[in-house]
Structures are given as structure tokens and as C-alpha cells.
């Protein structure tokens, strides 16, 4: 029994976080609108190119990258407020996969790989990961793709799914088994033929992801990452993804609740504003309470992310809190918008689909709780 509530992450904040909070809030509000997001969704655009360019100019793809590689040299805690604001606006920018790919390279890459790829990431934000496979498993070790070393490098085989923003990325981190051991690779995306990529149909239409057929793809020997660091890198990918996804969901929950509260304040039925009916009012209050709790869990996870033995528990708790807060708020948002809620035009569905998407990527509530039980009770 290792559980000690006092050890489970405290809450605090850095000056950089406060600053980024302010800047990110203003920046994201000015960059986009739901109307613009819907337009891009409908157009099938790969991402919001203009916002992305501005993000890169702000240097935000390098928040967590050390200054020696051109980054700002802060920690993931400082990336959290940015992801939160991006989530609040449903912005179509590759902030999360890029930041996580950078973390992967920083954690498990060779010095050469860091020098090659990190500066490029800071500049373009165009990096992503291909880890999951068709078995649907949340376990990043549960893969079947292989890489066999030959005279021209590693010859890959297998299929990856849910590689986000692949068509607009330049750098890819992927996993495959080398002699039955999971290994990570980092490579230029142009090593993968366009014909090997298929754009997937996602529940969240503001997201982009691809299935990649690795059959016949060969990558240079230099693409392989540090064998000794595979486990710690996979763990970092998992937790960093969940931390930032939690931030994106908390931001989404906030705007989903605001959007619904606005409706409850203006829509009348039976001669009264529907927000005066406790069936709606009390439930949205419960959603709000759930959101505020999720925010506290999120900031605590950000604050203690790097602390051995606390980071994982705090992050998985944040993931549970954020997933539940957004799912519940969005489910009720659909219901409380009545007939309009059932239409494509109502934004409630955007948030609900977003929550389902996040529950799919790096573990859902049940998965995280199982991991937490193992962490805290064993």
C-alpha cells in the first residue's frame, strides 16, 4: 500500500504559466472562431494553416524544447495553458502531437536526432507519431509491426492507425518491433509514400488522422532511437499526451458549459427561461462542478508532472477528471439544447465528439483507473 494523499501532487503555478495563460487566452480568441472551425471542417482542410503559422512564430511548438535546440526551454507544465486555450476554441492546430513528438525525441532520441529534428519542430510544428495498431489496444507495447535490419536500413512491415496530421507533418515518430522488442524510430515523413497513407474518418471532425501501411517502407539505420530508453520514452509519450489532452478537454468543457449556459439564459419554454428549471439548472451546475474539479486535477498534474512517483498518478487522475467533465457536459449540452441540440448546427455535438476522440487516443477512464489502482494499491 503506497497510497498517501499528501503525496499525490500538490498544486502550484509558475510565473511562466501565468504569463502563457494570458497570452494564450488572447491569442487563441483572436486566431479563430467556431464559424471558422466549422468552415475548415467542412472543407476537409488538413489544419488551420494561418493559425499554425502564427503558433510557430510565437515559438509555442518549442515551449518544452531546450534553448540549445531553438526552443523556449520550459516544461510541459507551461504547455498546459496553451493546450487548454486551443481546446477551448477547438482550434485545428497540431500542438499536442508536435509537442509530444518533441518530448519523445528529447527523451529517447540520440544526440544527432535531437539536433536534426528539434529545431525543425520549433520552426514548423510539423511532427507527429504513429503508434497504435488495428487491435485497438491502449497499451503502447501491444503492437505487431516489425522492423528488420537489412543492408539499406530497417525494412518496416505492418499497419499503424491514428497517426494525427500525417499529411501536414514532416517528422514522424513510430514504433515497431525489432527482434520482438518494441523500438522507436524517428524519420522524415517523405520516406513514407503518399500512397501508403489513408485519411481516416474520425468521430471528431476537427481532427485529422491517418492509417499508414508500412509494408515495404525502409528507413535508414540512423532512424532508430535509443534502445535503453524505449520504455521510459513510451511512458513519456503516454503521460505527455494525456496531460495535454486533459488540458484540451478542460478547455473544451469550459466553452461547452458557457455555450449551454448562454442558451439556458435566453431560450424560453412554457413562458419561462429554461435555465430557471432545476432539471436543467442543477445538472449544468453539476457539470460545472465537475469541470472545476477537472481543472484542479489538471493544474496539479501539470505542477507535479516531473516528480517521480507523483506525475503518473496525477496525470491519470487529470485524464479521468477531464474526460468525464467534457463527456458529461457535452452529453447534457446536446440534451438541453432540445431539438436544436440534435442538429449538426448546434455546437454541442462538436464537444461530444471531441470527448469521444480523446477517450480513444491514449486510454479512457476505465483504463486510467485500472492503472491508478495498480499504482496506488499494489
Amino acid at each position, binding site marked *: 500500500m503506497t497510497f498517501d494523499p499528501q503525496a499525490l501532487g500538490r498544486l502550484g503555478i509558475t510565473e511562466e504559466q501565468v504569463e502563457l495563460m494570458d497570452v494564450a487566452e488572447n491569442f487563441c480568441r483572436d486566431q479563430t472562431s467556431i464559424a471558422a472551425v466549422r468552415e475548415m471542417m467542412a472543407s476537409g482542410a488538413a489544419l488551420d494553416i494561418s493559425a499554425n503559422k502564427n503558433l510557430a512564430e510565437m515559438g509555442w511548438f518549442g515551449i518544452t524544447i531546450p534553448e540549445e535546440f531553438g526552443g523556449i526551454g520550459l516544461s510541459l507544465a507551461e504547455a498546459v495553458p496553451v493546450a487548454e486555450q486551443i481546446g477551448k476554441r477547438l482550434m485545428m492546430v497540431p500542438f499536442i502531437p508536435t509537442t509530444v513528438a518533441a518530448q519523445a525525441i528529447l527523451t529517447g532520441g540520440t544526440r544527432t536526432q535531437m539536433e536534426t529534428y528539434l529545431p525543425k519542430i520549433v520552426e514548423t510544428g510539423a511532427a507527429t507519431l504513429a503508434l497504435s495498431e488495428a487491435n485497438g489496444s491502449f497499451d503502447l507495447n501491444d503492437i505487431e509491426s516489425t522492423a528488420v535490419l537489412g543492408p539499406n536500413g530497417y525494412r518496416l512491415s505492418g499497419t499503424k492507425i491514428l497517426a494525427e496530421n500525417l499529411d501536414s507533418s514532416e517528422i514522424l515518430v513510430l514504433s515497431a518491433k525489432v527482434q520482438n522488442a518494441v523500438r522507436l524510430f524517428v524519420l522524415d515523413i517523405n520516406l513514407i509514400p503518399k500512397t501508403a497513407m489513408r485519411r481516416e*474518418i474520425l468521430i471528431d471532425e476537427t481532427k485529422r488522422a491517418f492509417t499508414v501501411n508500412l509494408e515495404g517502407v525502409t528507413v535508414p539505420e540512423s532512424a532508430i532511437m535509443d534502445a535503453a530508453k524505449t520504455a521510459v520514452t513510451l511512458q513519456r509519450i503516454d503521460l505527455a499526451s494525456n496531460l495535454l489532452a486533459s488540458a484540451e478537454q478542460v478547455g473544451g468543457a469550459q466553452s461547452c458549459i458557457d455555450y449551454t449556459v448562454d442558451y439556458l439564459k435566453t431560450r424560453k419554454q412554457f413562458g419561462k427561461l429554461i435555465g430557471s428549471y432545476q432539471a436543467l439548472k442543477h445538472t449544468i451546475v453539476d457539470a460545472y462542478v465537475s469541470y472545476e474539479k477537472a481543472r484542479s486535477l489538471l493544474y496539479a498534474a501539470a505542477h507535479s508532472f516531473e516528480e517521480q512517483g507523483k506525475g503518473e498518478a496525477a496525470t491519470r487522475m487529470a485524464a479521468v477528471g477531464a474526460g468525464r467533465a467534457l463527456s458529461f457536459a457535452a452529453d447534457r449540452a446536446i440534451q438541453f439544447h432540445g431539438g436544436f441540440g440534435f442538429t449538426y448546427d448546434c455546437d454541442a455535438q462538436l464537444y461530444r465528439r471531441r470527448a469521444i476522440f480523446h477517450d480513444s487516443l491514449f486510454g479512457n477512464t476505465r483504463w486510467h483507473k485500472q492503472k491508478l489502482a495498480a499504482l496506488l494499491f499494489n
Partner: protein
Amino acid sequence: MISVEDFAKDAEKWFAENTPRDLDFMLPLTFMEVGTDQQFEFLQNWQRQVYDAGFLGAAWPSEYGGGGLTDAHQSAATKIMRAHNVPIMMNTIGLSWAGPLILDIGSEAHKKKYIKGILSAEDIWCQGFSEPENGSDLGNAQLRAVRDGDEYILNGSKIWTTHGHYGKYMILLARTNPDAPNKYAGLSFILTPMDVPGVRTQKIRKLTGEHGFTQTFFEDARVPADGLMGAEGMGWKIAMQTLEYERGARGGQAGGYSITEPDPLEILNLARDTGQLDNPVVRDDLIDYIIDAQSLNLNGQRAKIGALVRDNPAGLPLMDKLAKTEFAREINQYALTLQGTRSAYYVEEPNAVDGGWWHRSYLNAFSATIGGGTSQIQRNIIGEHVLGLPKSY
């Protein structure tokens, strides 16, 4: 008259032979979920076949196109349809609302004109109750009907009209007297043709991404006044009567069934297929869904046994919609959590589990927790009409 047993045997044989299987597109669970022309045409054709074979409207009078048999015959056939899990009977507003009403209080001319087309699905019916400003508050409907000789002139708009763009007729709740002593007393119930000048439908896109229903605009649309059911001012009473047909609280439906109820076996299969049935936490959750499904199923059986509901006869019928539609939403939502990373996908994605069926079902489930009186309104109704609690508004 053929015996119920023999009729059931015929039905068993016919559905065993004729039930369509292995379609390459998904069928909707309810008529509200029809999302594509392909689905619509398939279901229209299927209802026609069932009708032609004699297994729909079996208890309706033969002089208007029915089978001239008894309710027991139709029940037997309907039960067999369920057992074979056949596609739904799609002309639901006609079969469960307009048809029973016309047979109940319609004129001889109404019956001659409408019944057969309802059964054969040749004439698609839709419902015009909700308005943009009055979704839950049906009694506040404002669409105006002004009598002008043999016609009514209609102005206003109806919304959430399922099959509105396919509809030949609409059952319409319209305001004939804006000065009535209360909002209900000014309403009338009119059978309205939709292929007249001044009626325009506009498709509404559902949250699933598909088109499912319409908004209908009436601009000086002239319709025959003989579509008036009952008398002017009786519209609210008649609308409530049609709700009872739908709830099955009164007899008279044409039979067949229009809603495929969620079957916990399907989610068990999903859990097994996704390797989750060994997870004790999942097992624990699934048992809840099984108990819930079983209790709803048993509620239905008990509602028919007078001695077991006599203390509160309205209870089970009035809670049926609330309990079933919320259950459907919840079980479909839960199903997503069994799919691992693949729950990121949606309909038409090859990697999707069961072709994205569960995701679409979950989103579509809101049509039933919102439409036909939201779950919140249902709780008001149960609180007030079953438990006798004071009104909330």
C-alpha cells in the same frame, strides 16, 4: 377466419424466407433515424412487401385495405417480426398515429382515402406539432390556420418533421383561434396535404451528419378544410389522443414495430469481440445493463397483467418512453468505451468497430430522449400524472 395459430405459422414461414439479411448498408433503429434515400427506399419497399403478404394492418378493416382479422392475429405477426429482428415498419406516423386516429374518429371518406396508402407506405405521413419557438411546449403552437370557405389558409412553420421531405400528408396542430380563453382551446387538428403551393420543406442536418428531418414552412398554403379532425378548438385533445395510440395505451396501431430496442446481447458480443468480457469491471457494468434491459422488458410484460399494476395503472405506460430512451442512450454510450483506440472512428471508416454503428446509435439516441417530449418533460408528466405532484411551470 384463419386461426391465430395458422396465421402465426404463415407469418413464421414468410418472415423466415423473406427477411432481408446481409445488407451492405446500415439499417436505422427507428424511423427517425432514416438518414439516406437508400435506407428510405429500402424500408418503404420492405413495408410494402410485409403489407402485401398480409402481416401489417391485419386487424384493420378490410374495406379500407386492412386484413379484416383481429388484434390477436396482428400481435402474433408482430411478435414474429421481432423474433426475426426484421427491418422496421417505416411509415410510423401513419401506422401509429394518423391511421388509428382516422379509424377512430375520421369520416368514411377519410378512411377510404388514407388507410391503404398508410399500410402500403405509398403515402408517407409526417407530424407537424413542434415549432421552432415551442419545442417542448406543444400547447403553445402558433402556426395559424384561417378558414376561408372550403379551405384553411396556413401560415407558420413546423420543425423536427421526420420524413418531411418524403411526406405526402402531415398531421398538423394549428391555431384556428388566437383569442381562445387559453392556449390549448385555440388549437385544431388538421390532416394536411404537403404537395400544395405554399408548403416548402427544408432539410435539417442531424448531429450524426446525416439528413433526417425537415423544417416545413407554410406561406398562404391552402388546404381542404375537410381535413379538420373533430371540431375547431379540439386540436389539443386530439393530439393527446394520438399520443396514447403511440404509447399503446389505447389499441388500434397497425402493428409491426417501428423501434428496434437495444439488445444487451449485442453489447455482450461487442465486449467479447473486443476482449473485454474478462475484465471484472466491465462484467460488473454489463450486469447493470442486463438487469436494466430485463427490467424494462418485464415492465412491458407486467403492464399487461392488471393485478400487478392496479395500484398505479398509468405508471408503467407513462414511464416507458423515459426509461427506454435513456437506457438506449446510456448503453450506446457505454459501448464506445469498449472499443479502445478504435472508438476514435465513425461511420464509413473501415477501421471502425461494427462500422461505427455504436457511435451513430449513441448520437441518434438523443432523437428519442429529446423528441416526443424530452426526458425532462417526461419526468414532469410522471411526477404530475402518476405521483400527483404539483406542476413545475
